């Protein structure tokens, strides 16, 4: 049986852990198979979980989150017959498949859409905990926005510095109001549970918001401009389907492969004009074709646009 390990955020984090869970559930529903799932409770438990699963014969073992990188590097060689899949991190071992997403590209498209949808020319970004991964989202978004609206204004806020920052919808909502008061009329939230508060406050205030990781358009139909979707669910689904035969190596899930995208569905249909669709398509083509290179914040800890 395959196995899935969630990171500390837990499987209902409204974010990528939950997406992974949905992928696994889809596989279960389609194939009728069963899988093991584990939630972390402490740092020291990561290794324990990996080893116990490997010993129990689970294959492949899928885990979400960069935090597993170190441990996997150590554990994978001990179980050469087991295949491991790690999401959001590269681990170079012969029995590991690493899946990374180009969040900057998806966020770039979100930025393009935000620029189109914004009437004031000012848009916002609200991050959860102030860590590099979230800056990657922020930087891609900023690049897309500036490309479409070079003199537009971008307001950036982070909720906090402790893990509590992922679960503070009150502060998320307040940040929305602060950004609105500075003119923002589209706000992109990459903040886990805090994001729920962001989307809510934006909907309450009658401005647009952008969801993240999973498709969150349906949370407030007609009020969420789009969601920057990471295909974590697909990746997990694919990995489970491939089973023990899964190919080791690095798998970059980018725009071209559909790994990241901006969600278009019934909920946001009224919000998306034809020009927007055109702009997104043009940008997608340019990125896929290599004309536009979206800078990845993680490579050098800097962002080319402010």
């Amino acid at each position: 049986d395959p196995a899935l390990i969630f990171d500390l955020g837990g499987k209902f984090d409204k974010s990528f852990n939950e997406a992974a869970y949905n992928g696994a559930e889809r596989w279960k529903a389609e194939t009728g198979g069963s899988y093991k799932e584990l939630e972390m409770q402490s740092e020291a438990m990561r290794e324990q979980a990996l080893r116990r699963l490997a010993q129990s014969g689970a294959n492949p073992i899928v885990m979400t989150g960069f935090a597993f990188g170190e441990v996997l590097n150590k554990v994978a060689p001990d179980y050469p017959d087991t295949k491991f899949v790690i999401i959001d991190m590269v681990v170079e071992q012969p029995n590991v498949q690493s899946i990374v997403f180009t969040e900057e590209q998806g966020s770039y498209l979100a930025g393009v859409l935000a620029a189109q949808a914004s009437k004031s020319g000012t848009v916002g970004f609200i991050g959860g905990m102030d860590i590099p991964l979230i800056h990657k989202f922020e930087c891609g978004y900023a690049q897309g926005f500036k490309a479409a609206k070079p003199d537009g204004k971008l307001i950036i806020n982070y909720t906090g510095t402790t893990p509590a920052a992922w679960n503070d919808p009150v502060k998320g909502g307040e940040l929305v109001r602060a950004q609105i008061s500075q003119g923002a009329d589209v706000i992109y939230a990459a903040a886990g549970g805090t994001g729920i508060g962001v989307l809510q406050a934006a909907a309450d205030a009658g401005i647009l918001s952008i969801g993240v990781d999973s498709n969150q358009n349906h949370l407030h139909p007609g009020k969420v401009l789009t969601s920057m979707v990471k295909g974590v669910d697909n990746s997990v689904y694919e990995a489970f389907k491939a089973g023990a035969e899964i190919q080791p190596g690095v798998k970059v899930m980018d725009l071209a492969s559909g790994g990241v995208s901006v969600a278009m569905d019934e909920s946001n249909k009224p919000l998306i004009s034809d020009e927007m669709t055109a702009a997104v398509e043009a940008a997608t083509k340019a990125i896929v074709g290599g004309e536009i290179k979206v800078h990845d914040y993680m490579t050098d800890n800097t962002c080319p646009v402010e």
Partner: protein
Amino acid sequence: MDFATVLQILDSAVRLMTPLLLACLAGLYSERAGVFDIGLEGKMLMAAFTSASVAYATGSAWLGLLAGIAGAAAMAGLHGLASISFRGNQLISGVAINFLASGLTVLLGQKIFGLGGRTPSLSGAARFGEITLPFADSLRPVPVIGPVYAELISGHTLLVYVAFAMVPLTWWVLYRTRFGLRLRAVGENPASVDTAGVSVTRLRYGAVMICGVLCGIAGAYLATGISAGFVKEMTAGRGFIALAALIFAKWRPWSALFATFLFGLMEAVANRFPDLDLGIITVPSMFMNALPYILTVIILAGFVGRAIPPRAGGEPYVKER
């Protein structure tokens, strides 16, 4: 910084201070009666959960509010049981209540809603909407007063007004009523109340339950007023800030208003200016986020000096050794 920005920051401060103010007044009742309470956080959290759950189930914010009050009151009752009836250590009881609320809310939430401790989002009548006060719109054009009335004073949820009304009410109860006199006395010298023939136990339970009710309103405000639903650990340390504000206010109602406003203001400013550019250096956002905590320490150290708590505070009333 223009007038509109100032107004918006103040407006934000008012919203952010509301849960602090309610929790601070809650602590004031309890501690003035001699029962220390570091479990404000847990009570608010429990209230946020129960109010969101019931508001979702019934679609009524009012029933949610009642449930929030019930949830916090249950925790308050536990605190009373431990620290009044069984003369336990009040600090430990508070710590335990914080843990208990933190665990129970998620456990129950997961059991009921299966969303990992979150409740489904609330909408419509399940939330307290913003109230526009009379003439807000027609007064808006009046210079200065107009915007202040329309932006700052009008347009909050009912619970905000309740919180502000609690300040004069608390003052009045404390200093103008029999109950207030006895409450203050029992926090200073319970034996004086006892020998006057008034039950110390009943008075303290009364104070602790009022504390529960106010924490309940604070929690309900968090979950059904300012946001729309419960998220685990959503109080995010506000109970502790309220406690700091209580000490800062030296256990006095009007000072509590001022102290919580200051904390609300600090948070609003940090929200508005995430990277404070001071010319020479830019203060990183991490430190702007920690600003309320840093300022708390500075204020406690620099301006408050020795805040003398109610004399019988923290100690159970033991008549017979």
